[in-house]
């Protein structure tokens, strides 16, 4: 049986991962708009580039991951663990799919969003998936 201490630890880890998913595109490895790179419309207006939209989406995903961790800490029953695990699997997949397929990043190979932000999010996504998988596997 997974001990309560361990489950609380996993919950705290999910909260941390969620915070990191939020912070990575804005603070740790900022996307292009924080390097003052915007897409310029014909009218002259500046809008965020693809990576900016991915970053905004990741903010929401990160918040959900942190929430899942919080729920696990607050209420640790086998059913909660399994549900949080399943949702973590999905959220981890979203963390990876958002900047790769769903929204994407800049196409230029040497942009910071592609060389730094994207791999960092991929790593975080994989860790969230692994944590989710562990929770689903260790139901009791």
């Amino acid at each position, binding site marked *: 049986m997974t001990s309560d201490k361990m489950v609380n630890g996993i919950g705290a880890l999910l909260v941390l991962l969620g915070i990191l998913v939020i912070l990575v595109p804005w603070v740790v490895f900022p996307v*292009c708009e924080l390097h003052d790179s915007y897409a310029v419309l014909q009218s002259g207006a500046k809008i965020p*580039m693809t990576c900016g939209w991915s970053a905004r989406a990741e903010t929401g995903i990160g918040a959900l991951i942190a929430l899942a961790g919080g729920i696990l800490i607050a209420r640790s029953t086998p059913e909660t663990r399994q549900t949080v695990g399943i949702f973590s699997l999905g959220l981890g997949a979203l963390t990876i799919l958002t900047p790769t397929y769903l929204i994407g990043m800049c196409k*230029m*190979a040497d942009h910071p969003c592609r060389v730094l932000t994207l791999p960092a999010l*991929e790593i975080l996504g994989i860790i969230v998936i692994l944590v989710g998988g562990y929770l689903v596997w260790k139901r009791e």
Partner: protein
Amino acid sequence: MSRSNTFGFFRLVTQNLANRPWRNLAAIAAFAIIAGTFFSAQYLMNGARQSLDTGIDRMGADIMVVPKEYSSAGETVLLTGQPTSFFFQDSGFEQIARVPGVAKASPEIFIATLYGQACCAGPVQLIAIDPARDFTISSWLQDNPGVVMGKDDIIVGNSIAGDVGSNLLFYGHTFHIVGRLGRTGLMGVDMAVFTRFEDAYTMADESGVKAARKLTIPPGMVSAVLVRVAPGTAPATVAAEITSELPGTKAITPGGLLSTIAGRLGSVTTMLYGSSIAVTAVSVPLLALVAAMVAQERKSEIAILRSLGATRSFIVRLMLTESVTLAFAGAMAGIVVASVILLAFQDFIALTLKIPFMIPSPAYILVAAGSSLALSSGIGGLAALWPAIHSSRSEPYETIRKGAS
């Protein structure tokens, strides 16, 4: 259901290790750093070398002849893809083709340009080739028979954004992507766009009207001559012959490029190998001290085992196995973490270090991982050896009596 279904030597080892989690975590961290840095250094060196080999192989050239004053620009183009434009005052192309040992010579024109998305412009090296004499793209075209390079058709390197069939704009001239090369890790190929001589001249002629900046390509001049040497001929020999016949030129060879890369990588690999050595030098005595402390704490337990019938070699084997197990676990963790970071951030590493880079072959990765594991395990065994031997020699009953009182 008893958890002791299979009790053996290794269960004793793992249970002993599980009993001191924090101290063992520290040891694992030390071994992770040793193995991780050692593995990373090998990974980087080999990745750079492999990329260079692949890229040069893709180019099909044994030597690249450039004007002497632009030799570093020529290397930079190849290694980093940082675009440049330069021309031979006197290209000497015909002379180069006649040098003994030269099997083929292909002239190329380098044009630095930008290409843009709506947001931003990135550097791209436009390389104009003579299709009749080229052997860089022609071999790729041979492998892809459905692709024909016609008017305004371009073949792009792997890192250029844009799907096959779409258009790119350079100096106001529209080009059509008909093919994409495979990744080499060599930026000079991956960030290049190949076009024909005549299309490049047309682009230059029209640039005065269509582009923000006029492009001038002096007629009859080229930027570089790629040379393929005859089989059995050493590139270095031919290179020396070329530079002696054309004194204003520099002949860049793969060996020369490798030295350049080694120089650039040198500081990084020195730091990595240095870290590995430094951590080892500090860790071995520390780990030996910890092993001695643990042996001292376990004197009673060891005495009990001896009293129950354990031989001295059993005790030594037990303690060495514990230490090597820790080392192995730490090394695995270090290698996995290093691999994840190197894999995920390989583009960043290549761009920052300005080196060509591609993922080493699985065989090489296994060798690098294996040697790092062996190094860590060896250190683990070495650190625990003396404490293990010393513990096995203590008289069992004295220790038990002292432990009992």
